């Protein structure tokens, strides 16, 4: 066994021949003209050979492992559909998390494929170029497998029929969409800092790992399988994120402040977007694995703490406002759910007041905040709904100019006061939801004044018409089915019928 291995090249040599060995410096054209984007951001690179590839995956091994992953995944998807796997989930309310995932997250996989295809051409170093090209293919695989897996649910449940169309138009989906638009319109180094480092290394664990584990807990075999299959690529993506940071920091100390500013910015943008995931975990999984707060403690406070301690030797500090984000972990899921409860008539998924046992679970997980601020409100809304007065908010909310979230989050030290900031640019006022978003706006106002804010667009008449139903038709919603309260929805009716059949059988 040992002898057979000795004949082959070692992993390092093999990798170096099949990546750098295939690159060359251009001679007919100036390298700066061939790679015009990799130095305008101010990042100084002295030696591209200084790039260390953490996973030394060559293209032949890449295809071999990826095809094995696909074979396994499609065997599961196929048997899930064949065996009516949707009947095995804990409760139909769970499917609403999938609706949010398919419309909000899966299109980001496609955006990632586009972004990595672009930067996979633009770096003059061969190491990062190959890593980005592989990742571009991974991300395409992620969006495809997610659409395939969830297409089975689309046969039975509402709100899953038009994800890309909705992603480009719907108010809450502009939150994840604008995050990626912002990243893809930045330079290649900022793109990698935003997506590979801040999103994939620091925050993606919070998105995928507890959520997929939650899917396993709720009997959703299809989602667990695509989720973990995607995550197996993610480990590679995470190392790319950490490597690009170390590479920039090691190359020149003038890179340090640029990298720090990008980290601050993208950490904040990322935590804002994860408010959607926080609410999925605390409110949308009928059987819960861990609270958002617990996930935050494990994946940001502990894992992020170790990471930033490691980066301290380069002079890098933990992201600005990390302390505020940690305070938010107590509140954000409840506040986000409340926003959607208000506006579920304009959303392509249902909301509801959690049942008593679920409220008790939240009380236990959030002992200092839930009973004080959020439980009484939910119990009030529940009473109203049962009395036939389900509350819907009929005015449109103001959106943050940067993260595009409705300005419903509070000051974290005073959860009864709405937080907002104001900036001026060219004589106009612009509102942001937080100091984090204000900093981002103030550094690049010319970029963010161009934001396509869904509420502004509705008021300007660019979204199908003047009345809410016109707008929802423009979103391609099936009114009365996709939107509104869960209780009384067609989803619920169908699910209850299935359960009744099961009892009879």
């Amino acid at each position, binding site marked *: 066994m040992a002898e057979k291995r000795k004949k082959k090249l070692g992993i390092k040599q093999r990798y170096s021949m099949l990546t750098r060995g295939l690159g060359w410096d251009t001679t007919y054209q100036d390298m700066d003209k061939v790679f015009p984007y990799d130095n305008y951001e101010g990042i100084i690179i002295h030696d591209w050979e200084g790039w260390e590839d953490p996973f030394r995956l060559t293209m032949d091994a890449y295809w071999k492992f990826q095809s094995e992953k696909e074979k396994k995944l499609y065997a599961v998807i196929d048997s899930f559909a064949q065996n009516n796997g949707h009947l095995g989930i804990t409760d139909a309310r769970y499917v609403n998390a999938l609706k949010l995932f398919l419309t909000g997250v899966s299109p980001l996989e496609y955006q990632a494929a586009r972004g990595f295809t672009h930067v996979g051409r633009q770096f003059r170093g061969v190491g990062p170029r190959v890593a980005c090209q592989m990742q571009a293919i991974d991300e395409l695989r992620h969006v495809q497998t997610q659409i395939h897996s969830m297409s089975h649910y689309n046969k039975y449940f509402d709100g899953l029929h038009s994800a890309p169309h909705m992603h480009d138009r719907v108010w809450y989906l502009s939150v994840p969409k604008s995050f990626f638009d912002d990243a893809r319109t930045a330079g290649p180094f900022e793109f990698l800092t935003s997506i590979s480092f801040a999103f994939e290394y620091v925050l993606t664990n919070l998105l995928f*790992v507890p959520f997929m584990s939650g899917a396993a807990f709720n009997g959703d075999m299809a989602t667990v399988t695509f989720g*973990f299959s995607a995550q*197996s690529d993610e480990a590679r993506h995470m190392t790319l994120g950490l490597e690009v940071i170390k590479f920039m920091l090691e190359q020149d100390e003038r890179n340090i402040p640029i990298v720090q500013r990008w980290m601050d910015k993208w950490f904040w943008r990322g935590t804002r977007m994860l408010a959607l995931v926080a609410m999925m975990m605390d409110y949308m999984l009928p059987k819960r694995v861990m609270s958002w707060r617990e996930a935050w403690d494990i994946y940001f406070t502990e894992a992020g703490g170790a990471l930033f301690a490691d980066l301290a030797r380069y002079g890098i500090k933990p992201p600005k406002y990390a302390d505020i984000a940690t305070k938010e972990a107590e509140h954000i899921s409840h506040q986000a759910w409340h926003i959607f409860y208000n506006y579920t008539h304009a959303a392509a998924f249902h909301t509801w007041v959690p049942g008593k046992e679920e409220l008790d679970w939240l009380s236990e997980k959030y002992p200092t905040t839930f009973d004080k601020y959020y439980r009484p409100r939910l119990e009030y809304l529940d009473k109203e709904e049962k009395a036939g007065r389900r509350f819907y908010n009929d005015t449109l909310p103001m959106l943050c100019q940067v993260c595009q979230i409705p300005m419903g989050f509070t000051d974290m030290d005073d959860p009864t006061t709405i937080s907002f900031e104001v900036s001026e640019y060219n004589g106009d006022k612009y509102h942001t939801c937080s100091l984090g978003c204000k900093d981002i706006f103030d550094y690049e106002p010319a970029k963010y004044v161009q934001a396509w804010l869904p509420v502004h667009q509705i008021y300007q008449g660019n979204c199908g018409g003047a009345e809410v139903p016109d707008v929802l038709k423009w979103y391609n919603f099936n009114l009365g089915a996709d939107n509104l309260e869960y209780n009384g929805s067609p989803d619920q009716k169908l699910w209850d019928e299935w359960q009744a059949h099961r009892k009879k059988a």
Partner: protein
Amino acid sequence: MSRVVSITLQNNDDARPIIEAIEKDNPEATVNIYPGMVKIDCEGRLIIKQETVEELLGREWDVQELHLSIISMGGNVDEEDDYFELSWNL
């Protein structure tokens, strides 16, 4: 300050010998079991040795087969022909 490195693997047949090998070679490691997955934490560093996995598996095992089972990780990666290591600079 925490210096914990971490690896998360699927809780399935392919990953089980890898999990066992990690427990064997990293006696300080803590194994956390969640639905569908196993998260293993260890202070400072954590190693996966090809030799140990092969012994448990009873066949040749390419360290890169790890790509089929891994879900997430934290730490600097060092990947070689005969081991995979995660560490923070202490």
